[in-house]
């Protein structure tokens, strides 16, 4: 009885619950109905919605990704690819989907080995090169994951071509910096030695009678010394230790001013054109150095076109934006004037382009070039806060693009060349300060032989004492700039208040001094750059004394 009553009670409860459920359904208190025969499988619907949602999510990630994505089946066929992949591979959907992407990688990538690796480890990361239909190559970093969906591997490929290029540029810049330091050091030591050779050769020559049989030999020594001095100057230019005297320039006018010289330099078979713009911006550069750049690049262009061709030297305003700067190491975005020198010659291969700015690298025959031309151009451009890039294709020609930052201001008047001194001799008193003994001796002898009264000091301190003890007028302070303890500039600062009429002439082979800011000389300072030939010294001394 009690059992039966219990069952009835249970049934009543179940019935009550069923009625309550129906009431809840009827009055809209229910969210979802699930399972059971005849009941709409809403949960199934929900599950399908969730699946669809996650597929949509995958789709939007796949389609919107900046990285290229490929879904590849077990036979190696591409089943799907995103827009970034079409860009990366340079192919349309039809040219990529259903194809084997392994066919579009460079030959050094072992597709079979990579697939085996993915099958074994489930995942593979590495680098490879994509070859586009037009032959251009893109370097990519990739990750391949197996079974992203049943039977499909997903490869994500990131284009790192630009990053690689920047890295290479950075390494190149570092290498050039290191070579520059080395070359600068060599040139510095060489300067003093050359100074002595040239001075004594010149003195011996002036002692010899014109008919003396030794004279020709000594003259040969002097000429060799001059050539060595030239090389040293070029090395200094490359290592950016040359002292620049920049002025505000119109590059276009500067190039036009060189037209006659350029025509002499080039063969008749080379057509020269010098387009420029009337509203060309101004730049701050050393005119002599700009000339060096143009001549060196023009000579290179000429040598690349032995059978004739066309040489264009163009000057034009350009704006280098952040995008450009991001792709070119060391470039600050801004307004520049570009000097572009284009030839229609042989062009350069990649290996040559990589090394062309290195000193002593040359593709010319032995004895034809020093390998310093482009090195010097590179140094001058860098020291002028400029940039240089080359675009070259074998058989097509080469363009060098040199960018100088634009500046405001009127073009500086070209200072007239100082009149040639009537004589190289003088009678004035010169206070000579030079820490290098051999150089001091050579300089003193040269000056004395030309009539000057020379007081020589081996340091700034010595110079102060000598000046104090010398009762008469000192006409000229001739001092090395870079000396231990007291610099040439400090010597001048101490002596000028005591001897206000004294003229000052600085000598240096080096830019690292407070007188020059980053190798740029303040205007109005008389300066001689080592290595100095005796004639250059005597001429400059006269010029300063007479000025």
């Amino acid at each position, binding site marked *: 009885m009690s059992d039966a009553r219990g069952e009835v009670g249970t049934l009543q409860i179940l019935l009550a619950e069923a009625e309550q*459920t129906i009431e809840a359904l009827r009055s809209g208190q*229910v*969210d979802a109905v*699930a399972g059971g025969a005849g009941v709409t499988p809403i*949960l199934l619907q929900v599950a399908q919605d969730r699946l669809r949602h996650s597929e949509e999510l995958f789709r939007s990630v796949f389609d919107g990704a900046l990285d290229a994505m490929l879904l590849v089946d077990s036979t190696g066929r591409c089943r799907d690819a995103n827009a970034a992949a079409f860009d990366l591979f340079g192919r349309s959907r039809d040219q990529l989907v259903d194809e084997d992407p392994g066919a579009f990688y460079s030959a050094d990538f072992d597709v079979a080995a990579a697939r085996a690796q993915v099958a074994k480890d489930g995942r593979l990361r590495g680098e490879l090169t994509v070859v586009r239909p037009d032959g251009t190559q893109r370097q990519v970093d990739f990750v391949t994951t197996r079974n992203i969906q049943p039977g499909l591997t997903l490869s994500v490929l990131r284009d790192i071509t630009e990053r690689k290029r920047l890295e290479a540029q950075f390494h190149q810049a570092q290498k050039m910096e290191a070579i520059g330091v080395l070359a600068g050091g060599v040139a510095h030591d060489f300067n003093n030695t050359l100074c002595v050779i040239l001075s004594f050769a010149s003195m011996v020559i002036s002692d010899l009678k014109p008919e003396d049989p030794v004279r020709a030999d000594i003259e040969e020594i002097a000429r060799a010394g001059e050539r060595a001095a030239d090389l040293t100057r070029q090395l200094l230019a490359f290592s950016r230790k040359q002292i620049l005297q920049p002025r505000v320039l119109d590059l276009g006018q500067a190039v036009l001013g060189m037209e006659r010289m350029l025509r002499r330099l080039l063969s008749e078979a080379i057509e020269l054109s010098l387009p420029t713009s009337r509203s060309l911006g101004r730049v701050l550069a050393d005119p002599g150095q700009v000339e060096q750049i143009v001549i060196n690049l023009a000579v290179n262009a000429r040598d690349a076109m032995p059978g004739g061709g066309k040489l264009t030297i163009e000057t034009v305003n350009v704006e280098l934006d952040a995008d450009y700067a991001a792709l070119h190491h060391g470039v600050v975005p801004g307004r520049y004037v570009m000097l572009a020198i284009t030839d229609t010659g042989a062009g350069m291969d990649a290996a040559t382009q990589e090394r062309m700015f290195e000193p002593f690298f040359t593709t010319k025959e032995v004895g034809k070039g020093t390998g310093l031309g482009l090195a010097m151009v590179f140094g001058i451009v860098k020291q002028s806060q400029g940039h240089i890039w080359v675009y070259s294709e074998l058989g097509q020609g080469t363009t060098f693009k040199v960018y100088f930052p634009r500046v405001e201001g009127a073009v500086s008047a070209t200072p007239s060349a100082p009149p040639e001194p009537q004589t190289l001799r003088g009678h004035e008193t010169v206070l000579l300060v030079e820490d290098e003994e051999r150089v001091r001796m050579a300089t003193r002898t040269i000056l004395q032989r030309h009539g000057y009264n020379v007081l020589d000091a081996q340091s700034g301190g010595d110079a102060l004492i000598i000046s104090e003890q010398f009762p008469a007028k000192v006409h000229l302070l001739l001092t090395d700039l870079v000396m231990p303890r007291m610099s040439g500039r400090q010597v001048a600062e101490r002596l000028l208040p005591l001897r206000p009429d004294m003229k000052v002439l600085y000598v240096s082979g080096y830019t690292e001094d407070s007188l020059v800011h980053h190798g740029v000389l303040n205007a109005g300072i008389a300066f001689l750059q080592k290595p100095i030939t005796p004639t250059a010294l005597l001429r400059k001394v006269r010029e300063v004394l007479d000025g």
Partner: protein
Amino acid sequence: MSGTRSTKGGTLRLRLYVAGESPNSVAAIRHLRAVLAGYPSLHAELEIIDVLKSPEAGMRARVLVTPTMVKVAPSPERRITGNLKDTNALVAVLGLTEAPRE
């Protein structure tokens, strides 16, 4: 303060099956918590189960619609469907004899 009494047999164990944050599910949670809060001396364990996250749990308990509250213990098992706004019905299912005084 009299008039409250918990069910016999100790802990009240409840499972509330909901469908995510659907309005009736949210309301059911709110109504149930409010009722339980009215019985401070009551020892109740409430487990809320989202059938969207674990549909199998709903299937196992034969919950056909949500929200559904199942009183698991003390026996007998009772269930109530809907958003539980009918407090009297809820209290009856829970086996609480009297509603708390306001």
